[in-house]
């Protein structure tokens, strides 16, 4: 069964069509990359998958639930992380994670927080206020928040943006181990092509609100005759129409 099934999904803001009739499915246990330049429609698509945004047309099923009618049943089994959405800065790391332990009804939340603190290496920061953390520390804590309910679907919007290579590698390792151990599905929006090649088994390429190409990283490299996804990304971003024909 697919974890995500999106059909004819569109989002219009006045005259602007931010997402233009996209279709895709993400099978259970897959890690799928959602790539595209700024304004391609990635964040809008993720917001609709999370129920933050009501689609103008089309349908979304997540974990078997229709997001238009039954989004809360799905939301309890998924989670989300983005460096652009903050955690309350005046609360300590521990207090923040306790809040989300309650919101996601996590059993034995104290133990789960301890596990995450060890794996993401922030045990020494639990009593520090979130506002006093560095960018790397904040991102690790945000990922802990996203993993606190052991989600069956994890949506990540540029999870390693502005991180140093060491912290980025730590987070990618955590995500790989989490997926391998839990069989969770991950949808990842990223501008880091090396990250996408390492984590993703399948890639959706977006441009101007449409999915203009899709395939495994190897298939895309072969199709565009390139050695890395960065060049494929540039080919698609700079094309003026040929790629849009591929749906």
């Amino acid at each position, binding site marked *: 069964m697919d974890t995500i099934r999106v059909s004819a999904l569109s989002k219009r803001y006045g005259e602007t069509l931010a997402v233009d009739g996209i279709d895709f499915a993400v099978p259970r246990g897959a890690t799928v990359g959602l790539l595209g330049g700024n304004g391609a429609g990635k964040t*809008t698509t993720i917001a609709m998958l999370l129920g*933050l945004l009501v689609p103008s047309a089309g349908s979304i099923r997540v974990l078997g639930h229709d997001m238009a009618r039954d989004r*809360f049943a799905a*939301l309890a089994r998924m989670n989300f992380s983005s460096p652009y959405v903050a955690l*309350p*800065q005046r609360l300590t790391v521990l207090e923040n994670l306790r809040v989300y332990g309650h*919101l996601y009804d996590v059993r034995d939340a104290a133990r789960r927080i301890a596990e995450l603190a060890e794996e993401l290496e922030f045990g020494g920061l639990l009593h520090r206020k979130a506002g006093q953390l560095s960018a790397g520390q904040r991102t690790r804590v945000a990922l802990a928040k996203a993993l606190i309910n052991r989600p069956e679907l994890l949506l990540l919007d540029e999870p390693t943006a502005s991180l140093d290579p060491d912290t980025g590698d730590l987070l990618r390792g955590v995500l790989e181990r989490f997926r391998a151990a839990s069989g969770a599905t991950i949808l990842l929006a990223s501008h880091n092509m090396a990250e996408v090649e390492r984590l993703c088994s399948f890639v959706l390429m977006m441009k101007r609100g449409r999915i203009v190409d899709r395939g495994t990283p190897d298939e895309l490299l072969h199709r565009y005759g390139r050695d890395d996804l960065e060049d494929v990304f540039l080919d698609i971003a700079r094309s003026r129409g040929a790629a849009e024909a591929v749906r």
Partner: protein
Amino acid sequence: MIRASLRRIWGLIYRHVALYRTSWPRVLELAYWPTLQLCIWGFTASFFGARIASTGAVAFGLLVGGVLLWEVALRSQMGMTLGFLEEIWSRNLGHVFVSPLRPWELVAALVASSIVKLLIGFVPAVLLAWLLYAFNIFSLGWPLALFGANLLVMGWWVSLGIIALILRHGSGAESLAWSLLFGLTPFSAVFYPVSVLPAAVRPIALALPSSHVFEGMRQVLLHGTVAWGHMAWAAGLNAAWLLAGILLFTWQFHRARVRGALIAIGE
């Protein structure tokens, strides 16, 4: 199901408890305005009370009672609205709304935390009224519970309206958190009866539960009787306004999801 729901509500209440536990300026701010208002009006009433021997004591009770009870509505509304604004200021709304927290659970958590904040602000003012002016608000007797409950609920529906406007207009509507209910003070007959108001304004006053509460308070203090008619009007109007507030909040929450405001609000 109910247990999970209660836990989510507690999660948001805990978020406010954690915030206030370590922020004495926030706690101080809760008690600051009720205490300041009480001091200003209490000393003013004492001054006139000493000069008008025949009606001074009654006027004193009406003024100080009005100040204390009106603070119930003001603190109830501000406690709830500021609880919502805290999520905007911390740019945390995105995380809250992608959790399984239902909108009604958010409202329930804001209501519960507003009651806690009200008690923190109200109790020192009540104690101060007793210590400085020997005015015991509990001398109103059990009708005090009816007055308090009605003003508490009025604070909630005004807050729901303000939150709906914030969802509609973004952080530009934040200032309403401090000004909207305060602006209803002249129509609420807090310190004078509705009959004092110009005839054209009286329908506005009578459409507010607060004016009926304060008419009721004056009847208890002046005549020692309960104005059941005013109490019934206050309860009925509160029910109607609360329903309107819930519908407005629900509608604007849905519209915010359509417009993408839940992502952009506070940015």
